[in-house]
């Protein structure tokens, strides 16, 4: 897999300096390693090369060899002569090779960039003051860095459609489009739903959807991300906020066990958008549209903010102590665990489970795989629940087993985490028979019946880690504060574990969780939250690799290959 690392290196010469770079990379990437920016528009590391913007033109040379003999041609100093190409070459198209020479700072290269910038701007509208891309626009940036700073164009600009609705989530301003074809290539090559194309020709070329088609793929918003200008905008984000006011926090998409890496953008406690964060081992530079909408749960209409004990309002601490009393009094407890909980939360919950010898149930949330970044397991942390010992069997389809235990009188108290019991198979009578402690973010009929109701925080309001389908431990950080007065699940579980064991409730931090996680759990030995890299960390799956998890294949994950690798079995011929 991609983590094996490239060890092969070649030496190339960039602006007069020799640099060792990995084989197989493009001249653009090599220049970047040498600290030289080669401006570009159409090139995208995860898409095919189209070579149309011509912004990346550089001078390129190769060591000379005699045509007839193949012998190197030497100069007077005994060095191999460099044969410079007569024309500038695009840096996005050529891979590095030994002895390759690149010049990125000559007069010719500067003149090329000047020229391209001027050309890109002659028919470009002066929309920056009202353009959503302003502040993160490559056209603005490169015009400043590489442009002439004045225009020689006095003719009429082309007129094109300004607001074409391409699909439910994306809108197009054709005048701003610089025709780089990134969006077209993405829909064709990654989303496998080729609905975009150009019509007309020359400078009148116009991006559009094919007749009768819609840009309605669940990946459509990636086109907005990769559009280097403000031509494609998100209908959700459009005109809402200037990007330079937003701050981003690294997070993980909880939509499925794929665990796409994300950035969540907020200002003054309000989230405005979610974008993918590049991780070549997980999601490349992509994420689903549906995953981007998840921030809306923060402001959901049925969001729970008031802890309750027996239907009456209480403080969060009071609710926790009421819950601990109920738990203490029973030895017929069942915990409905959640694979939405973080590793840290699951760890404390499993302490409680062990202390009270509670029965554990978990419900599977499955859906159809799309082969990309929406995996069959629609929860982010089933692997974590195994690793922390919270569960030892795959979550079941529903809670009918718990229902039978209630009917048989084997369970009289239920601690339900993030599950709406009625929705996952318990009847009203069964729910009425038990003392219910409900932890949830949104209200449901059965939550309203709980003896103790503890409102919980969304993923955007807490920090922690998940283990995705690849057994990759990935951390997420709180983006915005949660509703006032609420406790984190981490704190709730830690307190309940302590109180039911006869101890006292103390305030816990992630570090406390990791101090015990790293000493108690073999797979996590020696780890601390802060030492988990931003791009995550592969955890040895050990025997868990044998479990028939529901995921089959996605962008970076193939269950069969995974099991083979985890077991150390080489590919059978």
């Amino acid at each position, binding site marked *: 897999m991609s983590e094996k690392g490239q060890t092969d290196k070649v030496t190339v010469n960039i602006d007069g300096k020799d640099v060792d770079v990995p084989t197989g990379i493009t001249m653009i990437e090599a220049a970047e390693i040498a600290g030289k920016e080669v401006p570009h528009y159409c090139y995208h590391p995860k898409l095919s090369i189209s070579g149309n913007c011509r912004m990346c033109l550089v001078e390129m040379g190769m060591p000379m060899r005699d045509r007839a003999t193949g012998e190197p041609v030497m100069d007077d100093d005994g060095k191999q002569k460099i044969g410079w190409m007569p024309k500038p070459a695009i840096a996005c198209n050529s891979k590095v090779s030994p002895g390759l020479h690149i010049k990125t700072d000559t007069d010719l290269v500067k003149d090329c960039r000047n020229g391209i910038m001027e050309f*890109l701007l002659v028919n470009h509208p002066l929309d920056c003051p009202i353009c959503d891309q302003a502040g993160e626009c490559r056209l603005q940036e490169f015009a400043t860095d590489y442009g002439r700073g004045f225009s020689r164009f006095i003719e*009429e600009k082309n007129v094109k459609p300004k607001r074409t609705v391409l699909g439910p989530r994306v809108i197009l301003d054709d005048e701003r489009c610089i025709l780089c074809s990134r969006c077209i290539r993405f829909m064709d090559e990654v989303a496998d739903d080729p609905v975009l194309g150009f019509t007309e*020709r020359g400078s009148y070329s116009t991006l559009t959807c094919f007749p009768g088609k819609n840009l309605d793929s669940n990946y459509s918003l990636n086109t907005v991300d990769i559009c280097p200008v403000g031509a494609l905008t998100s209908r959700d984000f459009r005109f809402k906020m200037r990007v330079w006011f937003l701050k981003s926090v690294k997070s993980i998409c909880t939509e499925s066990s794929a665990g796409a890496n994300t950035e969540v953008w907020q200002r003054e406690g309000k989230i405005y958008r979610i974008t993918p964060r590049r991780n070549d081992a997980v999601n490349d530079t992509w994420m689903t549209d549906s995953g981007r909408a998840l921030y809306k749960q923060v402001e959901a209409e049925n969001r729970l903010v008031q802890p309750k004990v027996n239907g009456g309002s209480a403080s969060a601490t009071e609710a926790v102590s009421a819950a601990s009393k109920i738990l203490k009094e029973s030895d017929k407890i069942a915990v409905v665990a959640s694979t939405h909980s973080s590793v840290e939360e699951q760890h404390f919950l499993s302490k409680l489970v062990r202390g009270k010898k509670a029965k554990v149930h978990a419900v599977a949330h499955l859906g159809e795989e799309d082969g990309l970044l929406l995996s069959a397991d629609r929860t982010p942390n089933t692997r974590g629940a195994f690793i922390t010992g919270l569960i030892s069997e795959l979550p079941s389809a529903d809670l009918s087993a718990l229902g039978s235990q209630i009917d048989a009188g084997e369970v009289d108290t239920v601690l339900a985490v993030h599950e709406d019991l009625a929705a996952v198979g318990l009847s009203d009578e069964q729910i009425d028979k038990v003392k219910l402690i409900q932890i949830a973010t949104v209200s449901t009929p059965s939550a309203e019946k709980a003896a103790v109701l503890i409102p919980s925080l969304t993923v955007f309001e807490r920090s922690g880690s998940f283990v995705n389908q690849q057994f990759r431990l990935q951390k997420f950080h709180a983006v915005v504060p949660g509703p006032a007065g609420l406790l984190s699940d981490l704190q709730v579980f830690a307190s309940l574990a302590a109180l039911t064991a006869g101890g006292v409730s103390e305030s816990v931090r992630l570090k406390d969780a990791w101090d015990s996680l790293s000493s108690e759990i073999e797979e996590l030995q020696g780890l601390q939250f802060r030492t988990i890299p931003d791009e995550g960390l592969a955890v040895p799956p050990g025997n868990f690799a044998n479990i028939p998890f529901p995921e089959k294949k996605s962008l970076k994950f193939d269950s069969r290959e995974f099991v083979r690798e985890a077991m150390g079995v080489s590919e059978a011929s």
Partner: protein
Amino acid sequence: MSAGENRILFKNIDQPGYGRDIDSYMAAGGYETLKKAVGMKPEEICSEVMDSGIRGRGGAGFPAGMKWKFLDRKSGKPIYLVCNADESEPGTFKDRQIIYKDPHQLIEGMMISAYGTQTALAFIYIRGEMYEGARILEEAIEEARAKNFLGDNILGSGYSCDLIVHRGAGAYICGEETGLIESIEGKRPYPRIKPPYFPAVLGLYMCPTIVNNVETLCHVKHVIERGGKEYAKIGKPGNTGTRIWSVSGHVQKPGYYEIECGAMTYGELINDLCGGLRPGRKLKAIIPGGSSSKVLRADERFTGKLKDGTEFDWGVGDIPLDFDSPMAAGTMSGSGAVIVMDDSTDIVGALANINAFYAHESCGQCTPCREGSLWLKKVTARMIAGEAREEDADLLKSIADQIEGRTICAHGEATAWPVQSFILKFRDEFIEYARKQAAERKAKNAQPAAVA
């Protein structure tokens, strides 16, 4: 046939009683060379073509034998042969004579070439506007198929190859070979980036592909008929065979003329074959090889050394009609289209016309050509509309300089060269043009004041 012509390809064309049907063609010895060819080894065909030194007639003048040699035969993929019959370069009207009047010559040339390269399937990509030509080709192909000159087991040789006519939809860029290939594949004719998409390696359907011009493929027939070395005696070294020149513009007898390479000069072509200029007119300029080639001014002189070391000192009329000589004069013979302009020509108007063409035909894929070509057009359109500025001359040149050498395909050069050469050679006229307009405007604005 006019004196001075040497008609090989056009031997039968326009002859009284000669029709385009297969009987006419065969009565004149048609398809005998194909019979000869299938008795030879394919490699022999290729080496004869190599020996003939024949260069491509589509524009770039690349040696055909060499191109065939580049075919990637190790890949094991099928090989395709495509005849470029898109003939769209303004001024060019030679290929269509063959298609409309002697289609079997092309078919024979193609089937010999197909056999030589061991092509699996051959195509004729014909310009969309020539729908009658496409129909004629279809008809001829059926005639040839009936006689087993193409199709299965051609003339019992064991070699099979079919020929498909593919019509374009009216875009000049479909003549660019990789754009053409995309077009056959059913896509927009966006020229491909090279590397890696050299047709001989990754061409049609990512298989090794040869693209040759109509005239080039017809020459192959005559190469095999005579033998490569014998054919090479026509013309001169490096510039072998005959070429068909399409002459248009201000001459008495515009038309197509087949001339042995190097046997005549531009001056002789214009004055002798084409009957000279119109009465009382003087030559102003020649576009020597299609509208994309660099213009030559009537009073220019060209001096230097040819590849073989001979020195030359030419006026425009002295430039020999071949491949290398126009190149030595800083332009090119391109598609062999000679556009003659006499002293009545509005040079700004002429460039405006050319600019409009290349702006209309830019595929729009890459920035310099897409934006530059339309900008050029807008500037010259404004100039001829009466709003010329003195600085426009240098602006035009600078825009063209920002295009040349920086694009995906040679349409960039085709756009830039006319502009660069018109400004280089007629800069004073462009500036004078603006001054005159300014003076006229001034006079006009002054008038009401004088009345009041």
